[in-house]
């Protein structure tokens, strides 16, 4: 038992780090946690291009698609090292992590030639158009309708919570093509050009006050049949391949952790409070539990094995802990803690800001409840929930 790289891993780490040092500055206390805006997008595209040219974009992808043909462990090492630098990576996470792999799995040779390299080089950004106002956890319940018209399909409907739709060039959209078929059977997936007529992205005003996600409206949007991914009616099968990658893409929380609240408590004199100390111990144990679980997963990858299901505990732990830590930090400040001015509040009001983000993290990429269902069903082998909609034609299902 040790935490050392193998010889090959160590060599790759050195190579990765020297590449990063050449191009980026190490992260420091002033590095923004949730950067946004035009400048950031420009910087992100440039960095993606640099990575692609250096052979560090999508390390596990085969070389024919511009990847490195490397191992999952090399990708983990790259992520660890890149995470130490002020690297603008966010805008590509979903496209390269979820959408483009779906195109590679189900697209034609023309699709792959047209889209994969441009995405990898950061020239085009992709978004994932699955969730709808009435299809969140039950994402197979999408209503966005696609109707065949000659060699084209006509799309009408609304998507929601689409990360990055306003700066995306392409998306993959899950539609209903047969409302007479049961829920999972009548779906079809398409590639959609986000700049075309009839596609409109509107930012959602989130409970946190920010506007990072979008609603996307489709009004008589025409898509050639050649931009279909998978067979007509096989959309759910395609979507599962996309979703399989989701929890790898939606990682840890960027909010304050036990260390930051410990420092904060020391500064404000609360570190001597016994009740606080006990909570701090709980947060440390859970956070260590998750970090060390990732080491177990990496060990399996390093040995060339398939990791076990243990990594599925991650988001349940991190999102809940973030909410709990922020709540305690605010209560620690008593009445004063309700203020959120970034200039005057301690830690730049980080705890207050993350307090308002945390509810979203418990929902995005699978709610706590769905994640627990997944553990119960797929890891423990317990029976599925009752599915009253399983064999019923979609258009006869109760709505509300």
């Amino acid at each position, binding site marked *: 038992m040790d935490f050392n790289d193998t010889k090959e891993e160590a060599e790759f780490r050195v190579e990765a780090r020297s590449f990063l040092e050449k191009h980026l500055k190490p992260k420091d206390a002033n590095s923004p946690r949730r950067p946004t805006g035009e400048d950031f997008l420009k910087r992100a595209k440039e960095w993606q291009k640099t990575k692609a040219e250096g052979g560090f974009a999508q390390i596990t992808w085969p070389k024919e698609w511009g990847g490195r043909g490397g191992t999952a462990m090399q990708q983990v090492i790259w992520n660890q090292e890149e995470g130490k630098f002020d690297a603008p990576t966010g805008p590509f996470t979903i496209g390269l992590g979820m959408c483009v792999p779906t195109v590679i799995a189900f697209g034609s040779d023309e699709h792959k030639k047209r889209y994969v390299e441009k995405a990898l080089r950061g020239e085009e950004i992709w978004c994932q158009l699955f969730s709808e106002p009435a299809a969140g956890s039950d994402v197979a319940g999408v209503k966005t309708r696609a109707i065949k018209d000659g060699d084209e399909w006509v799309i009408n409907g609304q998507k929601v919570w689409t990360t990055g739709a306003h700066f995306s060039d392409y998306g993959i959209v899950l539609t209903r093509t047969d409302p007479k078929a049961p829920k999972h059977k009548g779906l079809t997936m398409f590639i959609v050009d986000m700049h075309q007529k009839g596609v409109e992205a509107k930012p959602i005003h989130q409970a946190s006050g920010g506007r990072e996600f979008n609603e996307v409206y489709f009004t008589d949007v025409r898509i050639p049949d050649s931009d279909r991914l998978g067979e007509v009616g096989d959309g759910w099968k395609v979507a599962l391949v996309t979703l399989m990658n989701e929890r790898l893409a939606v990682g840890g929380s960027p909010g304050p952790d036990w260390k930051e609240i410990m420092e904060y408590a020391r500064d404000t004199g609360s570190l001597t409070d016994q009740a606080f100390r006990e909570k701090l111990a709980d947060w*440390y144990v859970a956070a260590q539990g998750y970090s060390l679980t990732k080491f177990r997963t990496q060990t399996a990858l390093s040995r060339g094995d398939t990791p076990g299901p243990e990594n599925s505990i991650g988001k*349940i732990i991190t999102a809940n802990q973030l909410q709990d830590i922020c709540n305690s930090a605010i209560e620690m400040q008593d009445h004063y803690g309700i203020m959120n001015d970034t200039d005057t509040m301690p830690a730049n009001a980080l705890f207050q800001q993350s307090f308002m983000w945390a509810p979203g993290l418990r929902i995005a990429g699978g709610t706590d409840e769905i994640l627990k269902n997944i553990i*119960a069903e797929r890891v*423990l082998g317990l029976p599925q929930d*009752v599915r009253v909609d399983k064999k019923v034609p979609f258009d006869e299902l109760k709505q509300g």
Partner: protein
Amino acid sequence: MNFDFSEDQKFLAGEARKFLNAQCTTAHVREVLNDESKSHHDGVWNKVVEMGWIGTAIPEEYGGLGLGMLELCVIAEEMGRALAPVPFASTTYFFAEALKAAGSEEQKKEVLEKVVSGEVVGCYAASEGPGNPEPSKLKTTFDGSKLTGTKIPVTDGDIATHAVVLAKEGSGASLVLVDLTGAGVSRKKVSTLEPTRSHAEITFDGAPAQRLGKAGEGEDYHNRVLDRAAVLLAFEQLGGADRCLEMATEFAKDRYAFGRPIGGNQAIKHKLADMYVKNQVARSNCYYGAWALSTDASELPEAAASSRLAASEAYWFASKENIQTHGGMGFTWEVDCHLFYRRAKLLAVQAGSPKVWKEKLVSALERKNAA
């Protein structure tokens, strides 16, 4: 990255499980539970001694197998899973580790070989009453050759032949080794929530004893013994917690109510998923504890604390919710759920309760951040 046990260690764990599945069932555990005169299971204990497991982490020069702490960790997990009703933890994690940590060459030579052969059964006596024993406030005293005072409760204190005792000496504390079969020692069994690991009150009345290590350094030795035992106990807890999750899952799949398995209801599914999350948090923390223990890393204090805390929480949750999942059957004497519930509580308080370890952990983090 190599944060897992080796193939050899996993093989050892598998062999231990096979052996215990055959030789140490809950029927064996119940023989001790149901018979007040029994303090442990003699048959199981003799076989455990024969297997040589006590000597897993004892160097060959003292008669042990000289394998290592990682090997002892995987055995501990299996002993916990099997609820082994034997003085293995007292003898191996506490008594032998105390000798290894504080004993002189002579003491180790004289005693450890007899520990491995089963001739010496050890226990560790620190508690004197309610609350975590503070070395500065101990009432049991050692004058350099004789021990006086009362320790209660002492796990396996009624079957042990020898004890390592935390006692006051001068203005400090010392660890002392005492022969419980000798003069000046009286002991009586005490009733506890967990009869399958027996407990005693031991009174020393000028009992001949010898110091382990230097006078007045008992507190450091004590903390070192506890840090090391904490990791091993955590593996026992982990084994028990995983067994509870398996029992609850099996039951939830087989038990029908309202026309379907109860495990199809989210109230049960989410409960068991929570159990899984806690058990994984415990497992990962335990592995880190095992690493720190086997390498004698400077991180051992926080690694021991976090593995013990994670495992105590996991076992507590799994053992109580295993009963709950079993419903009324879970509350009967005949169904095994309560055996784990009892053991979970003993292991959570035996070497300091979670409250004590939370304080140890935060103190360690403070020292680290100040450095």
